[in-house]
């Protein structure tokens, strides 16, 4: 082990505060010492199963204590973890496994249905499963026999810690590579900004493939505090979610506006004592002032912070919401660049904009991704190279976000440069939705667009033309794309039309389509 690694705090607190809970899930806990020893044992088992430093290992698990053990075991083995969403269709799962050459998965019996449907040419080894599956298993009892200290593996802070897959415009997801050193900067930022200490209880409700989870685990353990894992089912019910916050005395949470807006608007906060909640970070989508003002009034002692940063460069700006929040409905600032980041606002010619001019935000950050796995073409487009002070160029990530610097020194988000949208905080490339629809034999042309929903987020809608001779109906198409896309990317409504409107340049006129849809639905 060399330098400070993303799992170093676990080893430190396992010595300092061995009995303090590191993870808590539905009334059961793992202390720092227990998490340390069980993750070391699994790490040995992974190494014995053939895991080499910097191999990618998939985590295919629901929320639970095993999820935390898997993360730390994979890191201790010198490997990079790849979150695989349990709600993801088997086809997409297989794509990711093949794309980043995963040979080992950590999973559980709860997911054998999807595991059995997995068609991959790889000879996978699976840990954590005792039921019959068509893959080789790393048996449970061989794990508990392993040593309780980490395997001797050389790991540097430039090693990859995780690869996170997100929607890709080509029709397949793309994986962002993150190093130990970048993840530590992100973890430190979270711990310092929220002033997390030993007594904090941070709710982890974001799925592992959503980068908020990096804050949940690594900022919390960096502070020696407790991660309270929230079952996926709970977050679907605002009243169950607020009950958990009250019962578990949650002190901090990083979430998306959608969750907070539904929590407030459905009256789920009314009968609960949420006074333990001292800090709420939110990001992913803009939070309308009117709705933010409502929840800030309901939680008078909670600090709210708007965090901005693509998953490629998490938390590069943030804005602590002042109290009282000023009137009006102008968008909230995304704030100033954090200590970790430097930014440029550039115009169409890749030149820096004049003060106050709108342009694309390019970010250079210590949390910056090392690039997309196995996607050289995308990497050459996604980064901006400017002459550096030394022999090497300075590399900026093109966020694709249009921003403007205000007179007050705060950046404001104006919209996207491309066709990426956010739905309930999740990133979706509309091109990917269209590509999934287009792969159906009877589809001639597909267009995806978004309409605003009542919770300050967006609903995805698709309009499709199909071969006249076919009797394809919307249900067939929905079923077809459910097998390809994550659930949140499946359109809320799909209409079959005779023809799609086109602009004079021949492109689908999505503006007309959106207006037409809103008028008629």
């Amino acid at each position, binding site marked *: 082990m060399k330098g400070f690694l993303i799992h170093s705090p676990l080893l430190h607190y396992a010595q300092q505060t061995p009995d303090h809970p590191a993870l808590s899930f539905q009334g059961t806990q793992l202390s720092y010492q227990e998490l340390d020893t069980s993750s070391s044992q699994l790490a040995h088992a992974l190494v014995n199963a053939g895991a080499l430093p910097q191999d990618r290992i998939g985590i295919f698990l*629901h929320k639970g204590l095993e999820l935390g053990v898997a993360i730390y075991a994979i890191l201790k083995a010198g490997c990079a973890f790849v979150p695989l969403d349990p*709600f993801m269709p088997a086809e997409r799962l297989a794509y990711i496994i093949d794309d980043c050459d995963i040979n080992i998965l950590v999973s559980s019996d*709860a997911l054998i249905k999807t595991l059995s449907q997995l068609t991959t040419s790889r000879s996978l080894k699976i840990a954590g499963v005792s039921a019959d599956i068509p893959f080789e298993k790393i048996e449970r009892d061989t794990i508990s026999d392993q040593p309780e200290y980490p395997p001797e593996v050389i790991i540097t802070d430039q090693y990859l810690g995780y690869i996170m897959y997100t929607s890709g415009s080509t029709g397949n997801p793309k994986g962002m590579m993150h190093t130990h050193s970048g993840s530590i900067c992100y973890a430190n930022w979270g711990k310092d900004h929220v002033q997390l200490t030993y007594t904090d209880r941070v709710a982890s409700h974001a799925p592992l493939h959503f980068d908020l989870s990096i804050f949940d685990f690594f900022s919390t353990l960096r502070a020696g505090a407790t991660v309270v894992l929230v079952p*996926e*089912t*709970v*977050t*679907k*019910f*605002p*009243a*169950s979610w607020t*009950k958990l916050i009250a019962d578990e005395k949650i002190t901090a949470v990083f979430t998306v506006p959608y969750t907070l807006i*539904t929590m407030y608007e*459905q*009256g*789920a906060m*009314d*009968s609960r004592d949420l006074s333990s909640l001292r800090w709420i970070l939110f990001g992913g989508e803009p939070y309308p002032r009117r709705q933010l003002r409502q929840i800030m009034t309901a939680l008078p002692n909670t600090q709210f912070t708007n965090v901005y940063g693509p998953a490629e460069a998490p938390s590069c700006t943030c804005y602590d919401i002042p109290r009282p929040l000023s009137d009006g409905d102008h968008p909230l600032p995304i704030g100033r660049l954090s200590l970790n980041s430097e930014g440029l606002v550039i115009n169409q010619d890749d030149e820096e904009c004049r003060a106050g001019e709108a342009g694309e935000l390019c970010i250079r950050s210590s949390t910056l991704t090392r690039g997309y796995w196995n996607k050289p073409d995308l990497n050459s487009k996604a980064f901006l190279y400017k002459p550096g002070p030394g022999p090497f160029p300075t590399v900026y990530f093109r966020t694709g976000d249009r921003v403007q610097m205000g007179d007050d020194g705060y950046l404001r988000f104006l919209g996207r440069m491309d066709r990426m949208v956010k739905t*309930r905080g999740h990133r979706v490339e509309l091109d990917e939705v269209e590509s999934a629809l287009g792969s159906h034999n009877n589809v001639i042309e597909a267009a995806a667009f978004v309409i605003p929903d009542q919770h300050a987020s967006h609903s995805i809608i698709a309009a499709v033309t199909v071969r006249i001779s076919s009797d394809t109906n*919307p*249900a067939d198409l*929905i*079923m077809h794309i459910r097998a390809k896309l994550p*659930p*949140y990317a499946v359109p*809320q409504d*799909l209409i079959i039309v005779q023809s799609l409107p086109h602009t004079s340049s021949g492109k689908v006129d999505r503006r007309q389509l959106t207006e037409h849809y809103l008028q008629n639905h």
Partner: protein
Amino acid sequence: MKTETLRQYICTTLLNNAGTTIADDEDLLMSGILDSISVMKLASHLESECNIAIPAEDIVLENFSTLAQIQQYLEQRMKG
């Protein structure tokens, strides 16, 4: 409301796929059949169909995880 009517509503309206099969005790959340948006649609549909009010504190995991639980909740609510 009969379990069959409920099942049909979830399959045809919420999932847009009449061909889906859902067992009475199947976990609607963990299997990905329902998500946060469809739970809300389902609750407001039940309110209008059964002519009852479903308070926010009742829209919880314990009442909405399976067809059988929803059925049981509705029966209780309609009695009370």
